[in-house]
């Protein structure tokens, strides 16, 4: 069983929901990312999605675009992100880490070299935004052989046929994108999400994480009620942007954001 499956199964048996934060690796500086990861673990998160910055983040809104620019300016590369995960693993071997980003940095490194290095570093899953399963036939087996969970997106526009097919290519969890749009937009409609996620649960046994548009304890609880986990990104990345000059203040601010979300999700536990 992968670390991701283990964590999600334990949560499910406790009737609890996963809190999954996303931050961009290397933002505000590569030396700070591991510290921020530990801070988030202390605030009660279950899985960490670590964004690999890319020069052309087509699926991201301005908040994460700017985070990518800051991270790249500070010399963040895919290899350096893997080194961050290694460092994180020196004192944490329980919290799963999922790398989330775009395909080209992985292409440039080489699929096999990346898969080897990722598992060596302690990465658990890989979510590549611009890689639908149709194009993943070369890379997905390399992930599977090494025990890396390939995580794919589902969207409001995904047909039933594709939901089944995509779930068949996924392990760990599937990531449901709550609305048509880019990260950071405020367009979430909880009722629509509830209906869609209930439908997805009928088509796959995999846990469903929901991301895009979750920005506070209230939306986290509302979405947590209908899913297996909530993914929180832009609001954290925006907090990093606003506190980048003072890392201690930043850690407090992240904790202040995540604590109420954790409490709100745990208050749902039956």
């Amino acid at each position: 069983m992968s670390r991701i499956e283990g964590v999600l199964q334990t949560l499910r048996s406790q009737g609890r929901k996963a809190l999954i934060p996303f931050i961009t690796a290397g933002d505000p500086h590569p030396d700070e990312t591991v510290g921020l990861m530990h801070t988030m673990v202390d605030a009660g998160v279950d899985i960490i999605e670590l964004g690999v910055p890319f020069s052309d983040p087509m699926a991201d809104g301005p908040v994460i675009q700017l985070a990518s620019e800051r991270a790249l300016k500070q010399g963040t590369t895919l290899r350096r992100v893997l080194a961050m995960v290694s460092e994180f693993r020196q004192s944490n071997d329980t919290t799963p880490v999922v790398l989330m980003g775009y395909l080209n940095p992985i292409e440039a490194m080489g699929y096999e070299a990346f898969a080897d290095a990722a598992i060596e570093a302690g990465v658990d899953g890989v979510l590549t935004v611009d890689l639908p399963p149709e194009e993943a036939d070369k890379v997905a087996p390399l992930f599977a052989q090494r025990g890396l969970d390939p995580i794919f997106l589902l969207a409001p526009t995904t047909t039933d046929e594709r939901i089944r097919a995509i779930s068949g290519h996924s392990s760990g969890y599937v990531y449901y994108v709550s609305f048509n749009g880019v990260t950071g937009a405020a367009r979430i409609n909880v009722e629509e999400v509830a209906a869609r996620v209930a439908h997805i649960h009928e088509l796959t046994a995999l846990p469903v994480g929901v991301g895009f548009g979750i920005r506070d304890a209230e939306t986290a609880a509302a979405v947590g009620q209908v899913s297996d986990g909530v993914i929180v990104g832009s609001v954290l990345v925006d907090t990093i942007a606003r506190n980048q000059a003072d890392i201690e203040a930043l850690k407090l601010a992240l904790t202040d954001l995540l604590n109420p979300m954790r409490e709100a999700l745990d208050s749902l536990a039956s």
Partner: protein
Amino acid sequence: MSEKLTEEMLTALPDSRGHFGAFGGRFVSETLMDSLMTLEREYLRLKKDPEFQATFDQDLADYVGRPSPLYFAERLTRETGGAQIWLKREDLNHTGAHKVNNTIGQALLASFLGKKRIIAETGAGQHGVATATVCARLGLECHVFMGAEDVQRQSLNVYRMKLLGAEVHSVESGSRTLKDAMNEAMRDWVTNVDDTFYIIGTVAGPHPYPLLVRDFQAVIGRETRRQSLEKTGKLPDALVACVGGGSNAIGMFYPFLTDESVQLYGVEAGGHGIGTGEHAAPLCAGRPGVLHGNRTYLMEDEHGQIAGTHSVSAGLDYPGVGPEHSWLKDIGRANYVSVTDDEALEAFRMLTLVEGIMPALESAHAVAYAVKLAATMDKDQMIVINLSGRGDKDIHTIAQLDGIEL
């Protein structure tokens, strides 16, 4: 090591997932997949629909003014002292470039699909103008995304688009040029996918765009083939076209791919020179990667981050290229070369003075290479340059280089 291409090989490409050999494909976020699959299905149906094709052909004739002439550039040929140089006059199309062939076709597709809101990206502004034009004609809402730097250097086209009723969105992110305009158009599309049709201006992007844009532009090569036989009794020995994304080049090349005797030359933007790194020539100096929905040759750093590009010509200032060109390069069917900013500017002046034809700076790259090539060929041989656009939009750039305030 060119491999002999047959009609059978060509009709098998792209494959069902949009691949030209190792290139192409559909690398987009899940939200767009359903739309792309619907577009592919509908396009493949309409491609065989006589009514759709008849409407397209009639629009090309009556609205665009096709066929565009194949013109013998007699003085240019004499000055060059080699092969006969002919110009395929896409600059004479309505809106002044080849871009309109494609926007007519895609707007027709949008109408058949019932989409009322159109978005487009543009570099030099020619595709933006051509899109705004067809939207005005069909009464469609039009949004054009354009890099902030290009908005500055192509202000005339920005104003034309506004006059045509389009909303021009100046894109401030990244390098503020064509690639960033395309990123922003993709972001708009993912947000408004239910009611919006994205008219991509070149043979790049996710499948089926490289296929359908090529089909709409292939009228250029089909006419050239017919006109060449009519006027000279033979096929040209060489075709020369500039390559940014590569839509005018593929439109010219495609109907000649199985004609082994016809040499194909795609001319990329060499900028300040390939050696300086400041250029926009992924086929000459890049390597394969994935950007904007397809795998193709890209300009990128060792870590897979897309590199900045430079060209005096906004329409060529793009780090990628259509996947079919990547495939043609790898199988050795087409030759990809580059000319510098300075060579293109010199060709602009030469064609203007010798033939009274002012080429777009993009097309001037093709002229520059063709002139060099012609000099190495025999007098009874024939080169066709795809003169993809006219230079009116570039007058400000030229004047600025001359230190003249207009």
